[in-house]
């Protein structure tokens, strides 16, 4: 059996009385793209920081490539690349200098650091900005450079905390495209994101977290189909409609001013609803991870 990239068992992080990560267990296999989903304060970043060895675990077991995070942080850090939520680039340095300076922390000699810096500048399409100081770069370029910097040591594991938050769709698409290339090259990627549709497309497996706990783990399509079914029919939260649904024995959930009905066979159910309940508005769409989260927690991921 091959060794997992990350092994967490009963992982816990406490800040005094606050439990940020509450006895979480998961395994990330090498070469896999693994996602952490959840609202702010769910415990995603705390978990990632423990894996990145910058915040010691306060309980449980956590190993990266078989090494304990509290005992072997130096070796682990040499094997990973971390992109945090903020672009923590040196604002006074150029694109090139940011990469070369960072490479030196991984004990790369000057020539190798320069070679890798140029390679990554090319890979992330920053060639024209090579000697430009960070301050004048666009948000998308800064983000690409932050990701490039995390790859300077050719990490076996790349940790990305909200890699595309705050970027326009074009910049996001470009970053996902590059991350896809990394995935195809066999890198193990651990990421957190608010963009559920992107997580669904990109992640091999994921966990949904809330209040420091893992609510569910699995493949995105399996999570959705097992918890929600294929489709969600949405209609208005109207007393007459609710009474009709109850009369017809159709299970539903109320979210704000909408009523959700999940099903694997939407067509016959829509016909039945139209003929029996005659709602003023009715729509059908594919079930998503957002629906799973709504069902699990009673609120949206971005709440």
């Amino acid at each position, binding site marked *: 059996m091959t060794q997992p990239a990350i092994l967490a068992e009963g992982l816990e992080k406490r*800040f005094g009385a606050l439990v940020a990560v509450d006895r979480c267990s998961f395994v990330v296999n090498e070469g896999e793209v693994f996602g952490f989903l959840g609202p702010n304060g769910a415990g995603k970043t705390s978990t990632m*920081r423990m894996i*990145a060895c*910058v*915040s*010691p675990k306060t309980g449980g077991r956590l190993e990266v490539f078989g090494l304990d995070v509290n005992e072997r*942080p*130096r*070796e682990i*850090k*040499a094997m*990973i690349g*971390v992109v*945090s939520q*903020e*672009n*923590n*680039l*040196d*604002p*006074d*340095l150029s694109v090139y*200098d940011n990469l070369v*300076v*960072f490479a*030196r*922390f*991984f*004990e790369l000699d000057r020539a190798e650091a320069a070679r890798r810096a140029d390679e990554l500048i090319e890979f992330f399409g920053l060639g024209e900005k090579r000697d430009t100081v960070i301050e004048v770069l666009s948000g998308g370029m800064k983000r690409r450079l932050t990701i490039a*910097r*995390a790859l300077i040591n050719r990490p076996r594991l790349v940790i990305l905390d909200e890699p595309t938050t705050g970027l326009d769709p074009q910049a996001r698409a470009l970053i996902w495209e590059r991350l896809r290339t990394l995935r195809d090259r066999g890198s193990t990627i651990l990421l957190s994101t608010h963009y559920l549709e992107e997580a669904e497309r990109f992640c091999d497996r994921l966990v949904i977290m809330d209040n420091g706990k893992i609510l569910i783990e699995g493949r995105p399509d399996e999570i959705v189909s097992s918890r929600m079914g294929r489709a969600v029919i949405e209609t208005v939260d109207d007393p007459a409609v609710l009474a009709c649904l109850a009369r017809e024995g159709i299970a539903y959930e109320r979210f704000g001013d909408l009523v959700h009905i999940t099903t694997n066979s939407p067509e016959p159910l829509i016909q039945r609803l139209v003929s029996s309940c005659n709602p003023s508005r009715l729509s059908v769409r594919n079930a998503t991870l957002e629906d799973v989260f709504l069902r699990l927690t009673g609120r949206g991921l971005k709440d």
Partner: protein
Amino acid sequence: MNWRTVRAIAGKDLLEVRKNRLAIWSILGLSFILSVGMPLLIGLLPFDVGPSGGDLGPFEALMTLLPPALQGLPDGARMVVLMLGYFLAPLFLIIPLMVAAIIGAESFVGEKERHTLEGLLYTPATDLELYAGKVLAGAVPSVLAAYLNFTAYAIVVNLVSAHIVGGIWFPTVTALALAVWVGPAVALLGVSASVLVSTRVETFLEANQLTGLLSLVIVGLMVGQGSGLLLLSLPVLLLVGLVIYAVDLVLIRLGAAVFSRDRLMARA
């Protein structure tokens, strides 16, 4: 401890200092005023270089403490020697202290304010290497600044006073001890104290204000010179240097011992 990593951390900070024009110009400006402007001004003052025997008032007692080789000079020349060789000489120590305070105070809290600290903490550098890198980044330029300023001061002093004193006379033994022995000690004091402060405070401004208190050390040395305590006293200077080095060591060890990236991350 991996010194390659320590040098890499120091190298990054030094690169940033080189790009900080405001800091560079402040240091150069103050260096020029203290190491060139002040001795030039004193040297150009119209001292009476007539024969000895005039009334030197409160300086009379200090004059008797000058080395025998300088005792025979006319009163005016001895006054120049006293001013340039003893009263003003400690002033050049302000430069390494200032350089150390700027770089050291910026070290951790500055990175935190610029949101660059987290990236550094993700590298394989240990806490001790991080701390040592920051201390080295402050120590190298401040010690260098101490030597360069002393050299500049020595050149200007001799240029403006050699014709009065009768030849090249500076540095004196005590001034040399001040530069070679006490100068680096003061520079290290500035670095060790400011880096330590930088790990504990929330803003660069706070760190800068606290490290500004270090200038009291220079004031102390100048008062010592003025009162005659340190004048011509090589053993006292060596002792002062030794005490400052001991304080440096305690501060560096204390700083490294209490430095915690987890604490910094929690506040980041």
